């Protein structure tokens, strides 16, 4: 997994470097739009290559970043993560047509069920409460124009 991540970053770095050259390097007096991106790519590509080599050799440090501690280590339940992402993606997919608050409330109920919240009362209460709170705070109090959709439900 780590090797794939490092390899993908390397490929992105190379593509970014090529893109930077296409943007134009400019001159000392008038640096082009690609000047700074190219310098970034010059550091990004070897750094990503170094990490990739370390991962392939198995010498890369497995320590998580400072802000993460061990939170992101260990086993992952991929189907659950996929389900959560798909349920979340429904919001931008149909939120404009159905209404953001309504879609989001339903998505939250689905996410809570995917996560394993038992029964139906708790997920439904969570979704409805969040929807009502969102409508009160964002629409009524802060006057944020959330899409109401064709049903006009916000």
């Amino acid at each position, binding site marked *: *997994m*780590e090797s794939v991540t490092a390899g993908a*970053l390397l490929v992105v770095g190379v593509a*970014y470097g090529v893109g930077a050259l296409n*943007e134009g390097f400019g001159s*000392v*007096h008038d*640096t082009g*739009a*690609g*000047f*700074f*991106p190219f*310098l*970034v*790519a010059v*550091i*990004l590509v070897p*750094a*990503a290559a170094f*990490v990739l080599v*370390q991962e392939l050799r198995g010498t*890369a*440090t497995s*320590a*998580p*970043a*400072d*802000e*993460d*501690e*061990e*939170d*992101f280590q*260990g*086993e992952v*339940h*991929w189907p659950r*993560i996929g389900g*959560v*992402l798909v349920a*979340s*993606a429904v919001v*931008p997919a149909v939120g404009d047509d159905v209404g*953001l608050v309504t879609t*989001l409330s339903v*998505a*939250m109920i689905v996410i*809570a069920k*995917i*996560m*394993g919240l038992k029964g139906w009362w*708790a997920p439904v209460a*969570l979704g409805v409460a*969040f929807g009502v709170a*969102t409508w009160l705070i964002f629409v009524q109090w*802060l006057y*944020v*124009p*959330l899409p109401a959709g064709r049903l006009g439900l916000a």
Partner: protein
Amino acid sequence: MINDLAGGFAAFADPTYLLLALAGVVLGTLVGVLPGIGPIGAMSVLLGITTQVGPTGSLILFAGIYFGSTYGGSTTSILLNVPGEASSVVTAIDGNQMTRRGRAGPALTIAAISSFVAGTISIVGLMLFAPTLSSVAVKLGPPEYMALCLAGLVLLAALSNGSAAKSVVMICAGLAVGTVGIDPADGDLRFTLGTTTLAEGFSFIALVMGVFGIAEALTMAGRRWSPERVSAPRLRELLPNREETRQAAPAALRGSLIGFGLGLVPGPAAVLSTFASYVTEKKLSRHPEKFGRGAVEGVAGPEAANNAAAGAAFIPLMVLGIPFAPTMALVLAALLLNGIVPGPTFVDDQPEMFWTVIAAMYIGNLMLLVLNLPLVGLFTRLLAVPPQAMMPFIIGLCVVGVYADGNSMFDVVVMLVAGLLGFLLRRSGFSMAAFVLAVVLQPTLETSLRQTVAYSDGNATYLLGRPVAMVIVAAAVLTLVASAARALRNRRRPNVISADQSSQPTSQPPRQ
């Protein structure tokens, strides 16, 4: 100054500000107590409402969260040996040993009072130094800003716990993402893939909420979980005895000074300052053998240090407009979203905002002390909230926040994609804090670099004539060398702190 401060307190008396300060410190304490979501995650989730609460309100809210998280992080460290925050890892060493010896109450009180003292000292420092340093900062030019940005990024990579190479990769990735959109010099579009949607670049809020809010929610999705059983001390058990107070007071003062000093320089100051304070206390102690077995100084020093560093971190942000820490990058983002650009003239241009925020920090710090000790039992009971209930809530807040900021479903898609990528990258040990800091610093770094290149007229020795820039670069290089030497030394022998500890804070958060 006294009049300004009085004006700040008068402005802060606005009920909205009081409510935001209270919300900030309570929320900060909660995210500090709960492993999994930290102050960066909480701030990123709330970025979407910063335009609604205004720049002063945003500063008050975010300052409350930042201070509160450093308070809250110590609670689980002391009671459970589970640091809620990276900056509370050191506190767990002796704090939890005190709990095992039946001194949990005094340990919590010492941590809270040390934090309060350090917080107050750092706010006084902020009040005194920010206006003075502003007059100096006005004289800085593009080479100095370039050097400061570089030093901030390089030191974050070098001094963080994880892989430095991975941090460098994420810094570059952040800088690269920041370049999408309008070229700041010529106004041309670049890396927009021919679409106008990306003309203004990626939404910073969408990126931050994705890599922190959504990614942290996803971590909870795949975990088995069991509630933590915590026995919090009662009110009458909180008071430390005279001996403990006598040992804690000087350690807290030293920790405050160490934290304040380190908070002013680039790098992960809050974490580093706790280690620096711990090592200092151990070296100064007549009984170094007590460290790791419940030394009071091992709690007071580091707790004071991380709080002082948190307060001091506001100085470079307000004076230079450059955040030296990821949390400050989010504070900067909140200000920018409100059309406020901090920098050398910030204190002069926005005196009411500056002094109101100073007043809010004083009151917020006091709120933390008054609220936290009596409510420690309530806060620790939150560890029993299942992630199944918390995760949908976080995702919902992120979606509404991102949409409310830009009225764009595209931003919501960007957030979800950033969340997935952030989750995968963080699982591989890549630092998203470095990424976010780089995205924020990119415009300043690129502009100052290109101006410096233009001013140099092709003369490679141009920078030698800029002593301040050279000093900053030299300091960064020296720190890098020292960091590399330390890393080499640590490969040969165990870590200076961990070597002789009988008990280490567990690295496993409770949500397993």
